[in-house]
């Protein structure tokens, strides 16, 4: 069907887009979404490797399941923090939440 490289390139592109999002976006929730994008790209990568290269012990697949789990937990926590910050500073703009500076 589709060669392995296709999946790899696809995941690379998605990962880079996620990196761009993390670096360039101002809103905290948007940054979180970009992180989700990155995580998913990585999971895709792992599963592709597992299925194509290691069908006997599909370690990558199991790992991807774990990644999904952890990502869900992390999103919950991160959003809790963002809500807290928003309550104290009434802004979710990461550029403005910068008091630990020189």
């Amino acid at each position, binding site marked *: 069907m589709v060669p392995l490289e296709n999946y790899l390139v696809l995941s690379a592109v998605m990962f880079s887009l996620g990196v761009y999002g993390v670096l360039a*976006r*101002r809103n905290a929730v948007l940054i979180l979404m970009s992180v989700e994008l990155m995580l998913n790209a990585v999971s895709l990568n792992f599963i592709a490797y597992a299925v194509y290269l290691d069908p006997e012990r599909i370690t990558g697949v199991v790992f991807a399941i774990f990644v999904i789990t952890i990502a869900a937990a992390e999103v919950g926590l991160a959003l809790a923090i963002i809500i807290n910050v928003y309550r104290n500073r009434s802004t979710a703009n990461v550029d403005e939440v910068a008091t630990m500076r020189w």
Partner: protein
Amino acid sequence: MATEVLWWVFAVGLTAAAIGVVTARSVIHSAIMLILSLAGIGAMYVFLTVEFVALVQFLIYGGAVTVLVLLALMLTRMGAEGEIGDLTGSQGPFAAVVAAALAILLTVVAIDTAWPGDIDDAPANISIEKIGEVLFQDFGAVFILISAVLLVAFIGAIVIARQEDD
């Protein structure tokens, strides 16, 4: 043959949705785009014959994560009126350069690497029994630890986000 074309359709769609996530002008638009890209990833999992993981993906990401995100957006009134000011931060252009470099680097590595020669172009068929076997036998301990992590996470979230009654 048809599968290939279908694959390409989904791949392009996925990429477009991802671009939409990171460049949309409104946070709600970004969130919608995120749902679409996550769904696209799920489709990719189906192509890779791990339907179980695709199911998990849809359920958790599509069902829980995006709901959480939208909830947070609503609670903090970020999506109601439009965002004031540009959503893209001050280091936008430089970030684009870095991301592009990263993409090129990874692509070059992926294509140039000499993969073991005898792999098919078609992925092997992974059965759900196999997944369950590996998950609970080889990675049983990790599984239990992950559940502990989940517990800690949701307690933590409650603690952080509760409002003090004055």
